[in-house]
């Protein structure tokens, strides 16, 4: 029974991880920037939702407003940081360092504006639970699962069945060609940052709704999410999402035979082993 409970909880965590991974991959695949500041947006999403809830905004509306705020910050990062650096010929390493700087700034801004303390959403139903047979889940866990699947399906549909999604893919496939065929890559980059940032506000809100808000926790989630991106095949939305769920399950189920402190080490060790034997990932990159 313990194994089954951990398995289900692993799937739920994996779904949240999957959204972080596919949105990170969306930015990386399109812009070529290792956007580590995405972890800061993830954190910001939670704090914005918390703020709106604290002033009496209904939870769903708070989530929508938070997604809007994150989208705006995503565009701001692209326009105020990445674009000027690229225009001046900054190397990818410079962009990575800049992104890291933005992440640290975001974390500290959040700590200054809100609090470095662990904050909880002031919602009574937050601690309620739902039982399905032998499985007991908290209401935020159930919401994490459904909202995550919803966001995944929306991104999948957007990527494969909309004109803008195809335009994003075209820009990602060949930046030079996109430039001369008037696909306006710079505009596409801003749109991608906006979409990815808005989407990551969902797990950014749902995870702390369950476990509390802290300014400095996003980076570990992003690190594990990056494994899903690389092992799932860069740009392969379904592959990345699947690997993220596998990682979530692995981290949880591994607890039945090893101590909790070693699960992250196990995850990264398996990733290194996978990269040695199959550097292209488990699924085909797109």
């Amino acid at each position, binding site marked *: 029974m313990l194994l089954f409970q951990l398995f289900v909880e692993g799937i739920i965590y994996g779904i949240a991880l999957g959204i972080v991974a596919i949105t990170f991959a969306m930015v990386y695949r399109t812009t070529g920037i290792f956007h580590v500041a995405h972890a800061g947006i993830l954190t910001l999403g939670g704090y914005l939702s918390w703020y709106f809830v604290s002033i009496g905004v209904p939870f769903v509306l708070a989530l929508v407003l938070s997604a809007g705020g994150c989208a705006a910050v995503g565009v701001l990062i692209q326009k105020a940081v990445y674009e000027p650096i690229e225009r001046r010929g900054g190397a990818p390493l410079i962009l990575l360092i800049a992104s890291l700087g933005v992440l640290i700034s975001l974390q500290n801004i959040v*700590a200054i504006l809100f609090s470095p303390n662990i904050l909880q959403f002031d919602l009574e139903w937050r601690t309620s639970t739902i039982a399905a047979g032998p499985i007991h889940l908290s209401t935020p866990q159930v919401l994490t699962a459904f909202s995550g699947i919803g966001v995944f399906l929306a991104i999948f549909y957007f990527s494969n069945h909309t004109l803008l999604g195809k335009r994003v893919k075209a820009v990602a496939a060949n930046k030079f060609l996109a430039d001369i065929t008037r696909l306006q890559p710079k505009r596409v980059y801003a749109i991608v940052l906006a979409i990815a940032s808005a989407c990551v506000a969902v797990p950014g809100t749902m995870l702390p709704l369950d476990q509390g808000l802290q300014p400095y926790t996003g980076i570990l989630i992003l690190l594990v999410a990056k494994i899903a991106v690389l092992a799932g095949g860069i740009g392969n939305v379904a592959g990345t999402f699947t690997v993220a769920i596998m990682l979530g399950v692995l981290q*949880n189920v591994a607890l039945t035979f090893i*101590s*909790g*402190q070693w699960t992250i080490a196990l995850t990264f060790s398996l990733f290194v082993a996978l990269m040695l034997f199959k550097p292209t990932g488990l699924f085909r990159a797109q």
Partner: protein
Amino acid sequence: MKKSILSVICASALTVGVFAARPVLAEAITVGAILPLTGPGAVVGLAEQRGIEFAVAEINKSGGIDGRNLEVVYDDSQGKADLGILAFNKQVDLDGVQAIIGAYSGPTIAMAPLATRKKVLVLNPAAQSDKLAKASPFVVNTIPLTSDEVSVIVDYITKQAKITKAGIIYENSAAGIDSRDDFTKQFKAAGGQVTAEEPVQFGDTNFRPALLKVADTAPQVVFVCITQGHSSFADQVGQQAGFPPVVATTYMTVAMGHPASNGWMNTSIRGALKPEVEAEFKTLYKVDAVNFFHREYYNSTKLLAEVIGNVLKNGQEVTGANLRESLFKTREFDGIAKLVFDTNTADRQVDVMKVVDGKVVPAEASN
């Protein structure tokens, strides 16, 4: 020309007169405080800072120490050893402090060799790793350490509550690991069986996997030692149907009384502010209660001020060595409780508390 020279002389005389009439302010005495002001431990660190600030305001309002104001330089350790060392060196070498109030076991243990070498008194009002007992002659603990508290809770649960099977959830930090080791050793010595032990990382607020794993081994109680995330922990315990009662040390005080904490027991280091002081604190900071960290840091600041006062009274220079010598010479202090220093760790009364119907009461009274 003569007129202007006269004006200058008059102005100079007036200026000299003005300054001469002013009382010469005695130089303030500066001590340091290295606390986790940001990061996961900030909830504790900010409470500790309030306790110090409140005591300093009270001391200065009543004339300071021998007519000199007390000032505190704060630095942030984030609860991390490396940042603690940086802050220690900065405060001693740049700010010239001779006494520091510390926090968290990791940073305090890391500062200990430096305290010995530089002869700086480090007061520890809250960290409880057993290693602090002999970390340095200059590290003085104003509360009992983990092993002292664990012996009280183990004694109670084995003799009074007849507990024989316990699980352990501990923070993977100096204090957490010491608590785990002390509990395991003492509980086994008392005939108990530890069914499982599961760590959680410092800063992690997802306790659910650890809760599930430990509960699965069917212990009668779960001994918990975490230094942050107590509210998240209690929330998640409340979501696990039939989770065994939690037993803990002082660290868990902030979660005692949480809706999910009925039946929980913890050790509590005895101490209380005077009612009028407590009322003033609550009004000033707009809080419902004075918590453990407010109380202990207030007490240690007052104790430090008393020691500094004694050194000055003896005509000595305020140095770490003189402060240490004076502290052990005085030996007994009456603040929020009676503190006796026969060793580097204060001898204090430890009680066992229990949550009954949402209220924290002495465990003996609940039987």
